[in-house]
């Protein structure tokens, strides 16, 4: 298993998925070794002796931001820390792993793909690529960084099997990268929710609509604000809470002022996951996932576990597994607003969705997903 992040140091869903999936596979009895940049700080017993830490000293990976790197690869002489990192990861990973005894290489997203390809070339073992998002998604619909795009394309062509986290991602791989659809299987992400679900906050002076996630263009938070404006025109007692940070923060604050709802929107900045579950979800009445494109969207499953109704963009992978969430086209802010208002206004609707999403999310477990992955392993062996 090749990954570049692992809890607790995570920036997105990938690290969580690698963690949960490997853990379940280990429990089932699959021998899993995880090649990571550094040894993670969580002391899970099950991962003892299973982590291959590649770098001696700590490296800070940070967030790979497609839009930022897009220009920079055109001039390769500039500071390319991300690409340097990929080179280093590849080199060290191949060095350490090539003589190990294993049957399958399972690599997560483009950063680890070169290492996966090189290992496959040397060892002749089957390579499975697990795609959490493509460059196409990260660039928000454009081709994105040509270099990354090319790494992805070549890897897709030369691997044995691709696992996409949603049909949405699969479609991208097939359409944008010209890959045979039979080569791509979908294994949706899941959630094993162990955290205690706190009681809903009682006696709030107003209803709360929440966004949780990075404040990037792709996440569609600007549509959330546009919908918020319409919501506050149609429902008096309401506040909007935005949890997360990102490059759009300033634009979004300005937008909320321009829309005349600045007094109703609060920007909370980054809040860690435990805090979100413990303090923010119980305070909210609706969670909105307004992404322009969301390969999956684990947050919606988390909210469902906490019995928080979600309005999710149809352009998200998670909408493929949550039947009972309310779904909207991210650009249809009127529809988004109407669904939010209805959830605020009608307790019966809110409760019904809470009940039904909570029920269905409990069926979306890593146990099931691990079995699907094992089935794919058997296909390539």
């Amino acid at each position: 298993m090749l990954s570049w992040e692992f809890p607790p140091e995570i920036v997105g869903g990938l690290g969580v998925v690698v963690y949960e999936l490997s853990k379940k596979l280990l429990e089932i009895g699959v021998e899993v070794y995880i090649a990571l940049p550094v040894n993670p700080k969580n002391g899970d017993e099950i991962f003892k002796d299973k982590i291959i830490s590649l770098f001696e000293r700590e490296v800070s990976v940070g967030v790979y931001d497609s839009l930022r790197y897009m220009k920079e690869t055109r001039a390769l002489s500039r500071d390319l820390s991300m690409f340097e990192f990929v080179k280093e990861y590849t080199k060290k990973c191949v060095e350490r792993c090539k003589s190990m005894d294993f049957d399958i290489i399972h690599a997560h997203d483009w950063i680890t793909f070169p290492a996966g390809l090189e290992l496959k070339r040397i060892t002749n073992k089957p390579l499975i690529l697990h795609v959490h998002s493509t460059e196409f998604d990260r660039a928000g619909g454009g081709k994105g960084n040509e270099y990354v795009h090319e790494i992805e394309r070549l890897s897709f062509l030369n691997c044995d099997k691709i696992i996409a986290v949603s049909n949405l991602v699969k479609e991208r791989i097939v359409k944008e990268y010209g890959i045979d659809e039979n080569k791509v299987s979908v294994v949706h992400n899941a959630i094993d929710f162990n955290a205690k679900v706190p009681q809903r906050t009682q006696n709030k002076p107003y209803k709360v609509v929440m966004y949780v996630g990075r404040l990037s263009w792709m996440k569609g938070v600007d549509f959330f604000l546009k919908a918020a404006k319409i919501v506050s025109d149609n429902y008096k007692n309401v506040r909007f809470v935005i949890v997360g940070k990102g490059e759009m923060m300033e634009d979004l604050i300005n937008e909320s002022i321009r829309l005349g709802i600045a007094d109703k929107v609060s920007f909370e900045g980054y809040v860690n996951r435990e805090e979100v579950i413990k303090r923010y979800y119980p305070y909210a009445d609706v969670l909105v996932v307004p992404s322009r494109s969301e390969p999956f969207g684990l947050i919606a499953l988390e909210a469902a576990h906490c019995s928080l109704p979600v309005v999710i963009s149809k352009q998200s992978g998670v909408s493929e597994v949550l039947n009972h969430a309310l779904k909207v086209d991210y650009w249809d802010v009127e529809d988004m607003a109407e669904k939010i208002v209805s959830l605020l206004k009608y307790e019966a609707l809110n409760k019904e969705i809470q009940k039904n999403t909570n029920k269905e999310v409990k069926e979306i477990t890593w146990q099931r997903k691990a079995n699907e992955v094992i089935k794919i392993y058997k296909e390539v062996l």
Partner: protein
Amino acid sequence: MVSVIFYLHIHQPYRVRRYRIFDICKGKYYWDIKKNKEILDRVVRKSYLPTTNILIDLMKKYEKFKVSFSITGTVLEQLMENKYNNVIDNLRKIVDMGGEVVDETYYHSLSFLYSEEEFKEQVKMHNEIINDVFGYDPKIFRNTELVYSNEIGKMVEKMGYKGILAEGHEKILKNKSPAFIYKGKDINLKILLRNYRLSDDIAFRFSLYTWEEFPLTADKFAQWVSAYNGNGEVVNLFMDFETFGEHQWHETGILEFLKHVPKEILKHKDNEFITPSEAIRKYKAKEEVDVPFISSWADTERDLSAWLGNDMQKYALHSVYALEKDVKESNNKYLIEEWRKLQISDHFYFMCTKWFADGDVHKYFNPYETPYDAFINYMNILEDLRERVKKEKVNERDAALKILSDVPLGKEFYFVNGKIAKNIKELMIEIKNLSRNEFKHHVNRNKNDFYNWIKDVVGDDELSIKIKKVRSKAQIIREINKRIKDLKEKI
């Protein structure tokens, strides 16, 4: 002897259009005219017309073949609006040839659960339209979705019906056979219980190729019916009219089956077809059935969970009936009609979540993407109606205030005795003080000054009409006094 009761139910709802939150109070029309017409056109073409034609032919051909039906006000209205006189004429022919029409609620509603008054009014409306259109006065009742309970039985008997149709499910029967006539607990109302096995063999399983009895032929079915000889008196085949040509498409051979099944059943000389009324005259009630719960013909649960299974449905239903008092007090015929159309049970059925996750079984009937969309859409419309009712109330209040207030300067009423009245209260007081002759001066065979003043200056048509032809002083005073009291209540 086996008497077959072949009864069909005809219903189409008024479907509502997409009604967004932003449409509230904008005067947007509720009903999806295009879709309603589209579906009606299709059902008429595929089912109502060909099937009624076949039924008429069968009744002509076989003297012993009879069919009974009920038809909701909502589909009857739509047939008339869209000039489907051919369908209505066909149904009339069926009635004229001895077919029976069964009563139900005009709006295919669940009103019996929420308002006895509304339920009775809708049944009365239905009875009237059936009398009008078919010249037939039904004595048998069927409730929406064949819902029955002890309580409903009592209510329906009190309304003068002799019999009621219900579901012949084990929940009611408890090992008794549906092939007899029963009666309600502690009442004389006869109950005809649907033979759901034989009915559903046609309605649901006819084209089900995984069914071990597939394909169902007319003679095979007739044998099953005849098998009741010796251990039953009635075989109650109750189903949706749309079974023939719409639920089961023409291509499945359902219409051919219908053409042949009476002949095959009547081949057995002890078999016959009768109507529900004939059945309850012919057979005694075997015993009482006790139904302390609500039973229906719907789904495997035989209850109302498809309409009332979740909180959204309960809330929506509760909300529409909560408007009853205000809507009725508005006295606005149009508002009352809109409100009643919003009681059609189909609206709530579309909000059902129990099948939503596991597939498309009911999707065919549901115009919404999700049950939540159905709920949101419906609640938006209901809010619009609520606002309209509120406005109507405000209007009434304004009108009442205007009538009670002083008339403009120079428009006062001048009495022959020199007194002056600025409003109807003063008018009433001064009339009291008039002598007989003075009164006669204003009210006589040739004129009624009070009427004129109230009509033209005060502008109260209702009161003016009431006193127009009155010549008695005491009665005029009484009428004005009563009117003032009524108006004051509205303020």
